[in-house]
């Protein structure tokens, strides 16, 4: 294939490789057969999983206690330059905290522009074309680079579906980190994890999200209860994250998580475009909102026009008594 070698950045998650990284490997497999997975932290030990998901080589970066962005980008940039024509023609990064940090640094180090918010990738006449969803997902814009620099694509999670069975463990190679100078001076001194039970928000088959229509912080307990009864994960609109009702990690949407559950329940959420881009991919959507004109009803498979304080407690009782 004309596309050449593709590298995908796979970040760590709960002791292994993050799903969004495995998704990138799946996307790369559609385009080429020579794939490198660039990993750091706990993902470096996941060579077998990465190989199974399509990585022929696993390139590891030992970031220690540093924030990942600077050292990982420096190591990749040096490796790209050292490899010359044998190096990657494209690098896929997840649209996450670390992914964007790495992409920004790489872009400057390699003097390469970035296409971000990618929701699809295809090959057209030997060049890579990226898809972007704009205006709340109502319009698709396709874009491509006009330079022969390494192509940097920052891809939204859930763009591809992770799939194993592609082969054995890849060959592992440690990438050295060149001196990163002043920018390398950030260290993580402590990590704080919030207690969360049940499935992860971006992997749960059912997501129940609450919005400002709940009225106050205490009523988010209804959302958690409903999520628990449906074996799903609770989520939130940005309005209530900003209001401090729930942590940022609950946020669904453009600036938060992209979710594609079998069922998404939007409770007291208006359906702003920035919220919808994060959940429009759900198989089925159920919305409860007192305003018949709320935009969320435009995409809901089942819409209930009603007061959350009346509908939700009854729904919880009905589910409990089953």
């Amino acid at each position: 294939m004309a596309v050449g070698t593709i590298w995908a950045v796979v970040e760590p998650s709960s002791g292994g490789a993050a799903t969004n990284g495995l998704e990138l490997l799946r996307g790369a497999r559609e385009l080429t057969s020579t794939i490198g997975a660039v990993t750091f932290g706990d993902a470096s030990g996941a060579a077998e999983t990465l190989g199974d998901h399509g990585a022929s080589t696993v390139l590891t970066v030992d970031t220690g206690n540093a924030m990942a962005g600077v050292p990982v980008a420096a190591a990749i940039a040096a490796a790209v330059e050292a490899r010359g024509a044998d190096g990657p023609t494209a690098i896929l990064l997840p649209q996450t905290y670390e992914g964007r940090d790495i992409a920004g640094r790489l872009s400057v180090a390699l003097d390469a522009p970035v296409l971000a918010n990618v929701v699809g990738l295809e090959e057209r006449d030997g060049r890579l074309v990226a898809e972007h969803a704009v205006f709340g997902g109502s319009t698709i814009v396709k874009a491509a680079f006009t330079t022969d620099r390494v192509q940097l694509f920052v891809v939204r999670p859930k763009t591809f579906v992770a799939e194993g069975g592609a082969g054995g463990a890849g060959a592992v190679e440690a990438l050295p980190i060149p001196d990163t100078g002043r920018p390398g001076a950030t260290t993580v001194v402590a990590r704080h994890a919030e207690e969360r039970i049940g499935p992860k928000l971006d992997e749960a088959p059912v997501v129940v999200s609450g919005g400002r229509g709940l009225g106050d912080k205490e009523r988010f307990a209804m959302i958690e209860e409903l999520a628990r009864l449906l074996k799903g994960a609770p989520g939130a609109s940005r309005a209530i994250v900003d209001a401090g009702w729930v942590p940022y990690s609950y946020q669904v949407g453009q600036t938060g998580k992209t979710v594609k559950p079998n069922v998404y329940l939007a409770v007291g959420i208006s359906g702003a475009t920035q919220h919808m881009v994060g959940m429009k991919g759900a198989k089925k959507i159920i919305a409860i909102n007192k305003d018949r004109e709320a935009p969320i009803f435009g995409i809901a498979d089942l819409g209930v026009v009603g007061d959350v304080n009346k509908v939700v407690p009854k729904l919880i009782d009905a589910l409990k008594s089953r």
Partner: protein
Amino acid sequence: MHVAVCVKQIPDPAAPGRLDPETKTLVREGKFVMDDSDSYGVEMALQLVQAAGGGAVTAISMAPNNEIKGVKDALAMGADSAIVVSDPALKGSDALSTARVLAAAVTRAGDGAGPVDLVVTATESTDGYTGTTPVQLAALLDLPAVTFVKKVVCDGSKVTVERQTDEGYDEVESTLPALVTVTAGVVEPRYPSFKAIMAAKNKPCHVVGLADLGLDASQVGFAGARQEITEVLAAEERKGGDIVEDDGDAHLRIVSYLESLKVI
């Protein structure tokens, strides 16, 4: 302490966006406002300077048509001065070119009001939302960066921040000067008083061109972006389904729907 805060000026986000059929880029017209996302950065900058016992906040913005309305919002909130880079050649700039321009402007701010200790930006803009500009800016300025920050404490030559993560937050330390990006909700942006709005009219707002900053037109705008839009299509529309008014039994509809989907 000198804090430079990036302020993007955008068309009123409530007005529906559209693409220029010719260049296929976002049409930026009408009344401009300060991107709401940046009001948090401005507030953070003001609080940090106050906590440091004094200093200056310089607002930095890049805009194609001598636009300063949105920057006036930042000055009204309390920023001391502003540098706006405006040039017809900036039209079509991508994140990397934008970062290049902002970097030159931050450097200029340092020449003016003393070395910049901290650069503050939003995590992502409302209309562009690439979220890569800030880190590119940090890289061009050879600064460390801490992104997705919810709390910042500056202490002389060091900054300690709480950085949001998927699981919770990390405590991160960095040397100064540095760049941080903040998300909405981390501070409560102040509403400028009428007096402050009037006072903002007399604050220094320097509008400079590319040449003033020693930048070349080939590094920015459509030329610098080195990417092109190949196609614009309507996305497959997701259709709404049944809508029912709650008559006291709507929860039963939800239960039977969940049953039909085999969720319960």
